[in-house]
């Protein structure tokens, strides 16, 4: 199977699964698929930095959490009818997804810009440790920020609204998330085929050559890192709307690890990789989690086996050979 066909197949299967679930009235399955679609978006974000740019970020929970907190904070003000800022001008909370999600993406991009500027001064093991450390900084920040729930987080009483969509029902909310996923996939495909994407793909393999043709690898990486943070923040915003709850746990280092698992399970640096990974992860969580309270131990063993013996993940095993050109 070519990678392109595999990508279309997976996209179609996810949609078909939900339509089938909707038909037989399994609402819970729809919610699971929504969760998978949102995790996939987070993974796609990380994949751009990790897979394409070779930047091993173990701190993407920071952007995921920021996206969630953007939604949570705006919603808290909206539902309590308290302005965020009331001075020279009036700034009020809102539950319009168009605004909350935009703010989430903006915040994610800003944070990724600052963290990227700092972290890209280094590379290798330093990069991993520093991204992990900054991720943890946001975690402690959220825990000590008592104005917005501290350790308890914030509940969103009613899911935000989107023009023309009844977001309160599971099926329309899935379709909305799926549409976002599709747009993100198309954007990434466009990026991959652009001169920027081609140069970025070359960075991990031969940075010297990229520099030689007059392109700054540092700028390439920074731009990719910022886009990566923005996409993962968008996923965090959707996740907050899905659960109608945000808490410091969204910033936890385990989330960074899980986002990385989506990428690895599916296959690094492949367009559909994180989608496959997220679907497999949610399926495992559901099936193994149902069998044993200690399902993480099996997840750990699986991950260990994949890393030690099966590089390339699920997509690598099912797709003929690696080629960016036929995506």
């Amino acid at each position, binding site marked *: 199977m070519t990678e392109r066909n595999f990508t279309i197949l997976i996209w179609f299967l996810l949609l078909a699964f939900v339509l089938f679930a909707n038909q037989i009235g399994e609402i819970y399955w729809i919610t699971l698929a929504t969760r998978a679609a949102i995790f996939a978006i987070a993974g796609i974000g990380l994949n751009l930095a*990790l897979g394409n740019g070779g930047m*091993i970020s*173990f701190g993407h929970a920071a952007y995921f959490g920021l996206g969630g907190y953007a939604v949570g904070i705006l919603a808290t003000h909206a539902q309590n009818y308290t302005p965020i800022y009331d001075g020279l001008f009036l700034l009020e909370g809102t539950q319009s997804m168009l605004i909350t999600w935009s703010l989430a993406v903006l915040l994610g991009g800003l944070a990724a810009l600052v963290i990227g500027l*700092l972290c890209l*001064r*280094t590379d*290798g*093991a*330093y990069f*991993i*440790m*520093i991204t*992990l*450390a*900054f991720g*943890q*900084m946001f975690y*402690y*920040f959220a*825990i*000590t*920020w*008592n*104005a917005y729930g501290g350790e308890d987080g914030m509940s969103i009483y009613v899911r935000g609204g989107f023009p023309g969509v009844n977001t309160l029902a599971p099926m329309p909310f899935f379709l909305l998330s799926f549409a976002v996923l599709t747009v993100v996939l198309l954007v990434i495909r466009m990026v991959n085929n652009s001169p920027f994407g081609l140069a970025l793909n070359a960075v991990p393999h031969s940075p010297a050559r990229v520099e030689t043709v007059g392109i700054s690898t540092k700028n390439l990486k920074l731009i990719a890192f910022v886009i990566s943070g923005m996409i993962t923040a968008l996923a965090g915003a959707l996740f907050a709307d899905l659960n109608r709850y945000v808490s410091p746990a969204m910033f936890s*280092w385990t989330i960074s*690890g899980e986002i*990385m*698992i989506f990428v*690895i399970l599916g296959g*690094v640096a492949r367009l559909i990789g994180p989608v496959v990974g997220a679907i497999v992860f949610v399926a495992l969580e559901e099936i193994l989690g149902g069998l044993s309270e*200690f*399902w*993480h*131990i099996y*997840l*750990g*063993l699986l*991950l*260990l086996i994949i*890393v*030690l013996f099966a590089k390339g993940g699920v997509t690598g095993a099912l797709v003929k050979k690696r080629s960016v050109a036929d995506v």
Partner: protein
Amino acid sequence: MTLLLIEQILNGLQLGVMLFLMAAGLTLVFGVMGLINLAHGSLFMVGAFAAAFIANLTGSYLLALIASAVVAAFAGILIEVLVIRRLYTRDHLDQVLATFALILIFSEGTRMIFGSFPLYLNIPDVLAGPISLPFGIEYPLFRLVLIVIGLAVAAGLYALITRTRIGIQIQAGESDREMISALGINISVLYTIVFALGAGLAGLAGALVGTLQSVEVGMGEPVLITAFVVIVIGGIGSIQGALLGAILVGLVQTLGAYLLPIWSVALLGSQDVGSILSSMLIYILMALILLVKPKGLLGSAA
């Protein structure tokens, strides 16, 4: 005020030496084998649980401490032989993923055996209570003992690395791996020893810190991440850097948590800003040091 400040400085020193026990193993393993080991926090946890189990069984705190280091070292040897050994030639991504997988296995495994409730390690009676220091300072004896143990381990480690045969081999391993195996030293055994040494130190730290707090699943990772901050600040691979970074982070963390809320109340009337800032302080310190010295205070080009 001054007395409290001195007490906080001692607390900072105590946190610092405990961080050093963690950071020393991490930085040794990275320096000698080029491995980034996320599962180091799991070894910390294993040591704490081993100590709690033995203390419960025998009632002896000393035995518990010995058990913490020994069990963690054996757990270290086990994972080194089964998993870690295959990772030395792999890239950092594989190392991160495989050791992250080990965290999941260790954490859930421990939860299966001991359950989700925290265990408690009690301070032994001889070390309980305060001690009077000069200038009328009353300070918990146990914390003072931690400082002494930490400094003693640091001195012992320094002697081990500079004065013994194995230490010279470790140093040689840090500068030229291929050469020392060419000289007929069994590099694979050396790697296992270094890993076990780091694991033992982490286990000991787990038992000591677990005595002050509680022994529970997931206790290792926050310490691990702080230890990463320590070695990034000190310079990865440098033992002296780890000690300097650990003391610096310990002091900044403790004094920040004490002073910033007080200053915040004085300036702004509320301690919120101070608390938030103090929780972020060591990361800000790390960011500042990165701006000036991207390879850490005592780091050489990796």
